[in-house]
């Protein structure tokens, strides 16, 4: 049973506009969340993370928001650029016995159009 869900398999956005990617989770024990970006024939590249003690983390054009009560996180990319076209995965892990065991969503394909 998938504990991390990305319900939008694809997203198309115009260059310069905001991309918003969403991720929902079911395990209330998750306390560390990450976003990865993946180009074809390459491995996932770490983008940004957030601990459950925060509700927002920002790094340049990328901001991750965490809503613990809704078990929801989102990634905002602004402004979107053509090089942002990739598959984005959210991932989560819990403390204790599950340390290091990342659970991934199925990914969202982002296409940035001119």
């Amino acid at each position, binding site marked *: 049973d998938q504990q991390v869900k*990305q319900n939008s398999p694809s997203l198309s956005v115009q260059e310069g506009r905001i991309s918003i990617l969403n991720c929902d989770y079911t395990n209330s024990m998750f306390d*560390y969340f990450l976003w990865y970006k993946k180009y074809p024939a*390459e*491995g996932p590249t*770490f983008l940004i993370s957030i601990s459950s003690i925060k509700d927002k983390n920002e790094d340049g054009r990328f901001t991750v928001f965490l809503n613990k009560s809704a078990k929801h996180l989102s990634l905002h990319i602004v402004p979107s650029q053509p090089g942002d076209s990739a598959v984005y995965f959210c991932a989560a892990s819990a403390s204790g016995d599950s340390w*290091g065991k990342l659970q991934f969503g199925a990914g969202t394909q982002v296409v940035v159009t001119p």
Partner: protein
Amino acid sequence: DAGITQSPRHKVTETGTPVTLRCHQTENHRYMYWYRQDPGHGLRLIHYSYGVKDTDKGEVSDGYSVSRSKTEDFLLTLESATSSQTSVYFCAISESLHNQPQHFGDGTRLSIL
């Protein structure tokens, strides 16, 4: 980029044959992981290692074994490959087990006919 090399990058083999994939890191990180990526599933953890000779099972470990005899190398073995193990396999490393990102290699595309 993290110094992670996976070999081979591509492999085609037949059902029933043994297959070993190698992950080599130059970062001296303690923790190493093997994932597989399949459509609709994202990445799923197969096995991980928390030190030389110390390994544990992940979510989808059946049919796979691992070994780590040196800090820098983590091997994934399919003792008798099946068609359901056709996938893209990624190795990852991290400095600590929690609250630290894992960094991934570029993957091995494995096809089992």
